[in-house]
């Protein structure tokens, strides 16, 4: 008997097997009474509420969302670049700093990055209460660490020989550093900066669902009152914002040879740093420190969380991550492969856009109308949302790919689906899997959001512990959550390296 040989194409489809246990649990948990509500939700998409009052609210809420999103993006991209430099090996080589510090900085940033902005938001809200700046800070903390990773990765591609060459000129160390990192930093900003602004806006929306303000808060409130028409007004306005910003971003081109523009960017850079530090100091000296008393009771409070329960929560979170990743990897190629015609493509693209657009808590709340809370439901939500993102990448790559193989195979009489699979997708499978490995890092972090809403895993426990001010439990949950994310990042890093 021939041995089963796995290749990148088959590896892209195998994870769909997660749908078997997932489907079984979902079917068992169906609540038929809730379908009417779900139907109402779907119908409202075509009949959103439009009147003067709601338009004013939309403008006000979008303004808040854009402000929080923009400021958190600006601060996180600038400090991300600074931390990216500090966490890149080139910095340590130039200043002859022992590698030990390099690992310390990297580890610190990995921990910060491993905790989702929603978790930071919930924590900060518990300590400082709800206000505009908490939203910015909650997004900035993990985003600085995420951005720093991207900048550091780019800086580590600097040719070591260029470093030796500049080093041999014996220039002042800061001059050498600046000369070497200038272009990688600018290029990373050009390629990655605007995408991060979009991410920032999305995160603001999600944080809004937890009460931070902006359009997210309105979405959540209208869902709670089952006002689906109003809900869809907010969702469509968010869609318009994302589409418009995408179109504007495409038009923006950074010209680094333009001296005035360069000086403007540098001024913004320094003003942001100055403003951030001033604000940080203001924040520290104007905070009601009484709130810290609850944090200081961290080590005094006792935990009711048993070891068995705790391990169960950890395993739930891991299972949730695996199931969601399975869906996010395999669903897009499967659906695109099966419905491989131009009309279906348009529908798949619209559906994928909606999955990206609707925040995961809203998808989950919608699904909860006809299904009981479970790991499978949370996994389906997270999987579908991320499948929307992976499918966008897959469509972009497939559309720009050379189609000669596909045409040649079709001309040989091979079926359209097989030609697509072997002539088109097989060439993308490797890079697609590499991207999915990166995506699964994000999925692990996002388990916190669906956990809070869907009553599963560590996310739910975090919410519970915070509500009861059980700070020791909060710490335990955060450590566990962070550890899972770090281990996941290490494994995915290995997978990515083997694929690229």
């Amino acid at each position, binding site marked *: 008997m021939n041995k089963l040989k796995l290749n990148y194409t088959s590896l892209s489809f195998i994870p769909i097997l997660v749908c078997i246990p997932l489907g079984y649990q979902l079917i068992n948990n169906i609540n038929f009474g809730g379908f009417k509500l779900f139907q109402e939700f779907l119908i409202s998409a075509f009949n959103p509420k439009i009147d003067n009052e709601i338009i004013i609210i939309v403008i006000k809420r979008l303004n808040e969302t854009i402000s929080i999103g923009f400021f958190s993006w600006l601060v996180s991209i600038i400090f991300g670049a600074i931390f990216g430099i500090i966490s890149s090996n080139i910095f340590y080589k130039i200043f002859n700093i022992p590698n030990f510090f390099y690992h310390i900085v990297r580890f610190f940033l990995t921990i910060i990055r491993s905790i989702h902005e929603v978790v930071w938001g919930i924590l900060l809200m518990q300590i400082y209460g709800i206000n505009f700046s908490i939203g910015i800070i909650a997004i900035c903390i993990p985003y600085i660490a995420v951005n720093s990773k991207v900048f550091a990765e780019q800086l580590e591609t600097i040719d070591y020989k260029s470093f*030796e060459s500049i080093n041999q000129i*014996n*220039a002042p160390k800061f001059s050498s550093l*600046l000369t070497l990192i*200038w272009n990688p930093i600018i290029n990373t900003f050009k390629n990655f900066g605007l995408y991060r602004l979009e991410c920032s806006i999305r995160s603001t929306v999600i944080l809004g669902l937890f009460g931070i303000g902006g359009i997210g808060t309105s979405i959540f409130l209208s869902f709670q009152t089952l006002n689906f028409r109003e809900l869809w007004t907010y969702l469509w306005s968010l869609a318009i914002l994302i589409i418009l910003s995408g179109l504007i971003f495409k038009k923006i081109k950074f010209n680094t040879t333009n*001296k005035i523009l360069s000086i403007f960017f540098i001024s913004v850079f320094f003003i942001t740093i100055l403003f951030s530090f001033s604000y940080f100091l203001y924040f520290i000296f104007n905070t009601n420190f009484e709130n810290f008393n609850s944090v200081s009771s961290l080590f005094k409070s006792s935990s009711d969380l048993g070891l068995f329960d705790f391990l169960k929560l950890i395993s739930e979170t891991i299972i949730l991550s695996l199931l969601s990743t399975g869906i996010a990897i395999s669903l897009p190629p499967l659906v695109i492969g099966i419905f491989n015609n131009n009309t279906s493509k348009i529908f798949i693209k619209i559906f994928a856009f909606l999955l990206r657009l609707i925040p995961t808590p809203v998808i989950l709340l919608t699904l909860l109308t006809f299904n009981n809370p479970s790991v499978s439901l949370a996994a389906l939500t997270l999987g579908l949302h991320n499948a929307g993102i992976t499918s966008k990448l897959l469509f972009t790559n497939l559309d720009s790919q050379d189609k000669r193989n596909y045409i040649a195979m079709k001309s040989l009489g091979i079926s359209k689906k097989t030609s697509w699979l072997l002539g088109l997708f097989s060439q993308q499978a490797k890079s697609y899997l590499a991207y999915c490995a990166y995506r699964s890092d994000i999925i692990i972090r996002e388990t916190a959001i669906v956990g809070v809403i869907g009553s599963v895993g560590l996310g739910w426990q975090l919410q519970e512990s915070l509500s009861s001010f059980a700070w020791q439990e909060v710490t335990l949950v955060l450590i566990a959550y962070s550890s899972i994310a770090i281990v996941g990042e290490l494994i995915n890093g290995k997978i990515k390296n083997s694929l690229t």
Partner: protein
Amino acid sequence: MNNTVLELENISYKYKDDLILNKINLKINSGEKIALLGKSGSGKTTLISVINGTIKPTQGEVKLFNESFEELDRKQKSKITTIWQDLRLIEDLSAEQNVNCGLLAENNFYFAFKNLLNISSFKKAHKYMKLCRLHNSIYDKKIRKLSGGQKQRVAIARSLIQESNILLADEPFNNLDPKLITTIKNLLLENADKNKTKKSPKTALVALHRLDLLNDFDKVIGIRDGKIFFNIKRNNLKKIHLEKIY
């Protein structure tokens, strides 16, 4: 009077289990032009890298102006300039920005900043680029868009602009056409520039493959398997010497 500018004392360099340089002793006097001969992999590039401080020797000491290289400050170390075989230019910067990088040692951070923003003066860079027969149409072109010969001359201009006393060059005439080789060789090795348009390095150690380029050198050093086989005046070079190293 001792006019030794560079001295290598018992230099060895081991990479993993391979001994790349084996107990090299060498003295280079001020104003000497030395050609370094040897086949590929003989240790020429490693020797240059040890002299300019890029590689630390496993054993032995490099002395510059009778002082240990390790103990010299940045300004003193900048008296050595290197032209690398693989050029080591910064691909994303323009030709003139790369040449200006040669001035980083004598300027402050603000100069580096202005150079990257394209708002620094390129007057000196242009002078050396012109001397290297680079056409002004390529001054603001990114390195990645230049031909091999143009890149070679940008690297040479970057080295010359440093106006250092000692030149280390690893195959500096690669990618150049025969006419240009003569021009560039004169630029690098001329003792005194008649027109005072540039300061040539007084002392030079140049790794070469082509024997027809030896005529302007005072001495020839032959290296094989990381060992110096001969260190003689150019006029005394015989076929038997070359047979030892090739």
